[in-house]
């Protein structure tokens, strides 16, 4: 027994020693936090996709990081990653209890949880992306994905050579339904003859399913696929890459971010950008400026919340012109894009 005690003391001793060595970096960190009291603290909680999901979680974090850069010394930003549904509430609560000024819940799946935490902590301020939470201390940001999807639908409709277009969805949830409805309407508006093949893989994190879905579509003669499936969509790009290398003329339309940056211009036709980063930036900035407004914020083409990337090297000028025409009509209200099928 004594020997174990000795070992225990040894272990603790070493840890303390090691900790001593570590203090240098620690001091640096503390210096940064010296003025912590005066900082506006903004936290975000990812859903199970994690902060490197190549999608909206990552985009949201990029928004906060940009804010941190622009307002150096005024704000402090951090994120907490959820590994299971059960962690949403403790993660949100962690920021709220520590007195952070604004806590973001990223993603549709966190709607219920943000609501619960908001009700339990009426003095705290929260915000959520992609869901509507009816609480006096929550800002809900949703996007008119259907408007942006309409525009990429126009691109696809005009550029398809086979008149067959694919749509790969993640789960069949309201957000994705908006992508679907807008895209379908856009294709039909530009090319009434085009046929759309749909496939909902049931997951946002299964590239293998995306790859299989894309393979089936390309085999059926589809030449352009629009995916709204998060990391599942990575598989669509993989399949397209393989086909392109084999000489087939196929394209993918990316989602959320400009995915040509990740997957290259040779297969990425364009992307339906959903500016989660800008939304997070904007709402957070309002908080810093003391103008935080709870309630629903809807971002569409007009607000630049959705749309195509600035550069589209693969789209001919005449097609882009057409796209811009439609964009103006939607902004003007001449065209009402359906959000449901």
């Amino acid at each position, binding site marked *: *027994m004594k*020997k*174990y005690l*000795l*070992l*225990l003391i040894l*272990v603790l001793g*070493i*840890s*303390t020693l*090691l*900790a001593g*060595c*570590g*203090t240098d*970096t*620690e001091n640096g*960190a503390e210096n940064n936090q010296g003025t912590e009291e005066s900082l506006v603290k903004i936290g975000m909680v990812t859903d*199970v996709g994690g902060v490197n999901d190549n999608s909206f979680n990552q985009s949201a974090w990029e928004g906060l990081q940009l804010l941190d850069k622009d307002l150096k010394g005024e704000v402090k930003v*951090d994120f*907490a*990653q959820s*590994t*299971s*549904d*059960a*962690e949403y*509430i*403790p*993660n949100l*609560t*962690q920021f709220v*209890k*520590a007195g952070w000024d604004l806590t973001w819940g990223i993603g*549709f*799946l966190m709607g*219920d949880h943000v609501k619960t935490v908001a009700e*339990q902590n009426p003095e705290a301020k929260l915000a959520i992306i992609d869901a509507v939470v009816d609480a006096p201390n929550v800002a809900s940001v949703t996007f008119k994905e259907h408007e942006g999807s309409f525009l990429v639908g126009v691109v696809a409709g005009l550029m398809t050579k086979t008149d067959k277009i694919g749509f790969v969805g993640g*789960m*069949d*949830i*309201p957000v994705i339904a908006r992508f679907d409805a807008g895209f379908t309407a856009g294709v039909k508006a530009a090319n009434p003859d085009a046929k759309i093949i749909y496939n909902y893989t*049931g*997951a*946002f*994190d*299964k590239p293998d399913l995306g790859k299989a879905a894309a393979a089936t579509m390309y085999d059926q003669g589809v030449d352009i696929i629009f995916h709204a499936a998060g990391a599942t969509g990575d598989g669509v790009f993989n399949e397209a890459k393989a086909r392109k290398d084999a000489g087939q003329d196929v394209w993918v339309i990316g989602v959320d971010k400009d995915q040509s940056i990740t997957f290259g211009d040779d297969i990425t036709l364009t992307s339906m950008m959903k500016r989660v980063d800008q939304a997070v930036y904007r709402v957070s900035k309002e908080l810093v400026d003391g103008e935080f407004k709870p309630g629903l914020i809807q971002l569409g083409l007009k607000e630049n919340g959705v749309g195509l990337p600035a550069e589209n090297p693969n789209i001919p000028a005449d097609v882009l012109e057409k796209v811009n025409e439609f964009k103006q009509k939607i902004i003007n209200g001449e065209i009402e894009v359906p959000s449901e099928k």
Partner: protein
Amino acid sequence: MNKIVKFFTKDSSLIPLMAILLGLLFGAVVMLLGGYNPLLAYTALFQKVFGDLYNIGETIRQITPLIFTGLSVAFAFRTGLFNIGAEGQFVMGSLGAVWIGTQFALPWYIHAPLAIIVGALLGGFWGAISGYLKAKRGVNEVITTIMLNYISLYLANYIIANYLRAPGQQRSEIIQDSASISLNTLSEFFGYARLHWGIILAILAAFVFYIILWKTKMGFELRAVGFNPHAAEYAGMNVNKNVINAMFIGGVFAGLGGAIEVLGVFKYMTISASLPGYGFDGIAVALIGANTALGVIFAAILFGVLEFGAAGMKFVAGVPIEVIEIVIASVIFFVAASGLVKFILKPFRRKEKGGAVE
């Protein structure tokens, strides 16, 4: 009380305790190499877990399902079966509970118990399928339980999507209040931590686990079959029946875990792209807990504390998630690889023995 002291001073308990320390020490080295302060990180971990009532409550919430799935795996292990299917049995338990919880209006003293029982039975049924196939057709239970995990996931998704779904949501309706097992008053006291009757049920389940295995005729048979099926057959026990029983009871434990998670924590079940993961953690919990009731509880606490406390390490000490995962994994690695720990402890132990001889 004496028994508890004995439990901790036993060799079989000392080794895991030393393993935890060694794992933490190794994690500290990793953090140092990454330029982070391990002492601050560990303080943050324990503060996160024990720092205030809310976190204590949430840690208990985290531990509860792990006890159930740990018991599930451990029970099957005792009969020589490898239950990889606690995951699927957990999902079926959740499905049963959410079905009863949402679709019926009953008085609370019937509703919640009924939802729990239906969940437990569905979990048990799910386990018994693998048991039956093993007993009657000799199909390896590892394969069937893995496959049943996926079947349960997609079956649950299908049923929720088509029969139980809340409009415009990616989940079922919320269960009726009468089916909830939340401890609302206590929960408020714990800063709205999601406390529920589950932890009491989990400890009760561990007790039942012990009683079945060591105090009943069935447990005698189950253990005999687990250690030596040939001798069990010789002694007139029905090996096949025991295999099915073991998988059924193991499934009941996991199903209970799934049911209480729905009734106590979420109040609904989501359409999920992946399995919840408690069943897989349950395998490690059972192994680390040496397949004993008390061992499973302690192992679940270890897992729960590490998983829940990890968030604190990032939040307070700024340790990146990747490094935290390495630290957690190394603690579990050291606990699981007790042989390695014995090897490291060898010089200390030899002296101990030498001293005794002198």
